[in-house]
């Protein structure tokens, strides 16, 4: 029988009455108190998230950047230490295998390496996908460091305040999508200014044995701001308001980056990478469906799998994620809709378990933080 794996913080979550679920083989907190309270704390103050379930893959050696350049839809060979890029991994047909963050980093002893953060649910698949290509790029030292490390996200308007107090001053100078190898209390720590909530914030990677101390230090430093630990429930509502796609919902192997609205993450210029020829064909022909945002009338959320209908009742799309937005106080959804109907303002219907409800195509993201 398969048992779920713990993160270095699982026992903390359990001891703090979190409701736990199995997520991609990890025992993870879905919520501690209430999804809405955790969501709103992140929007108005600061929240911390155990995201240790995300896969962390390390590549080092002279060929590391060329290997990743061959695997990813965006260029890697021009990345300098400190840079982070959102990218995709596609199959030969141009279908999305995973969406990832790739970072170029430098150790304190000046050795360059790359870190690939992949979805927990795709880690095994990606390891298998990468494996045969290793031989074509000899000299790449590869390590799956997921289980030796923990990953903690600090998100919200007071995130910088916490980081300021717990990490060296240079970390505060990190711009959006920049990353650095540094220290927290003399222990190694990778910090990047990235996140999955639509707020300003940081993601920290620390050694497993340091995770609990860092987690508790963050909670202590954030107490005066009303910091809350945030579970996967609010992580999902936060990313949905920010219109960030989630693998297995908006993204899968049948969806290409252009249909998903992620064309910005594909660079076809003078590059050879997996999926490139299929993608260059798809780039120039408008797809039949597009990813859209929907505002649903009333209070009842449209959930994943709900059909989208035109005025004549024909099925013209499907919801991929939906919830009641805690910030906006109305139901929101993302889905794929017939491109002919995907213009902002278009009114359609969504079939919510048998009852047809009006919905309107709206611009994404649903929520935009004020800077």
């Amino acid at each position: 029988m398969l048992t779920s794996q713990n993160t270095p913080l699982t026992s903390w979550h359990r001891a703090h009455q979190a409701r736990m679920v199995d997520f991609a083989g990890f025992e993870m907190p879905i919520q501690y108190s209430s999804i809405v309270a955790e969501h709103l704390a992140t929007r108005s103050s600061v929240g911390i998230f155990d995201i240790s379930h995300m896969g962390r893959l390390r590549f080092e050696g002279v060929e590391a950047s060329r290997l990743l350049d061959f695997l990813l839809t965006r260029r890697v060979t021009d990345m300098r230490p400190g840079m982070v890029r959102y990218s995709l991994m596609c199959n030969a047909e141009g279908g999305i295998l995973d969406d990832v963050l790739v970072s170029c980093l430098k150790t304190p002893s000046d050795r360059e390496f790359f870190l690939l953060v992949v979805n927990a649910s795709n880690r095994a698949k990606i390891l298998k996908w990468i494996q045969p290509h290793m031989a074509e790029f000899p000299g790449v030292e590869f390590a799956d460091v997921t289980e030796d490390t923990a990953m903690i996200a600090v998100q919200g308007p007071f995130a910088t305040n916490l980081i300021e107090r717990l990490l060296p001053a240079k970390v505060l100078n990190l711009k959006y999508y920049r990353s650095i190898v540094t220290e927290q209390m003399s222990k190694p720590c990778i910090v990047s200014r990235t996140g999955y909530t639509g707020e300003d914030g940081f993601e920290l990677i620390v050694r497993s044995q340091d995770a609990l101390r860092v987690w508790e230090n963050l909670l202590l430093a954030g107490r005066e701001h009303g910091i809350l630990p945030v579970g996967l429930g609010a992580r999902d509502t936060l990313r949905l308001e920010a219109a960030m796609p989630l693998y297995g919902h908006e993204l899968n192997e049948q969806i290409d980056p252009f249909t998903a609205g992620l064309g910005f993450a594909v660079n076809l210029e003078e590059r050879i990478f997996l999926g490139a020829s299929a993608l260059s064909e798809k780039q120039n022909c408008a797809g039949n469906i597009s990813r859209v945002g929907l505002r649903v009338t009333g209070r009842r959320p449209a959930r994943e799998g709900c059909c989208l209908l035109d005025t004549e009742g024909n099925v013209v799309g499907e919801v991929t994620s939906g919830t009641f937005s805690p910030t906006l106080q109305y139901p929101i959804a993302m889905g794929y809709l017939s491109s002919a109907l995907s213009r902002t303002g278009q009114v359609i219907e969504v079939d919510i378990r048998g009852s047809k409800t009006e919905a309107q195509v709206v611009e994404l993201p649903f929520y935009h933080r004020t800077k």
Partner: protein
Amino acid sequence: MNPETLRYNSSHEWVGIVEENGEQIAIVGITDFALEQLTDLVYMALPQVGTQLSAGDEFGEVESVKAVSPLYCPVDGQVVEVHQELVDNLEQLAQDPFGSGWIIKLRVGGNVSLDNLLDYDAYRKQCAEA
């Protein structure tokens, strides 16, 4: 209603029988335990007055930010009253689940049987083991 005298579905609905205008009326709601589990309620769907229900029928749903939970009728009967105000005031449900948070009333026959339902102790035992 006094929770100790009510009967329960294992799916967390409660039912109490009262006499109103010479008729046997079943009042149905959901328990404090269910509400603690649900958290963050956003929507509730209720049946029409007049709907004929059998024990075990789905008669509505409550929805939280995270998920949808169907409501199951504990007894046979006809819906005579629906607590429509709850739909716009879900806090009331969470604040007073055994009182002003009642959900529907059903007209039940004189020989309504509650034997298949859990009593208070059995229901609390089930919650403790959950």
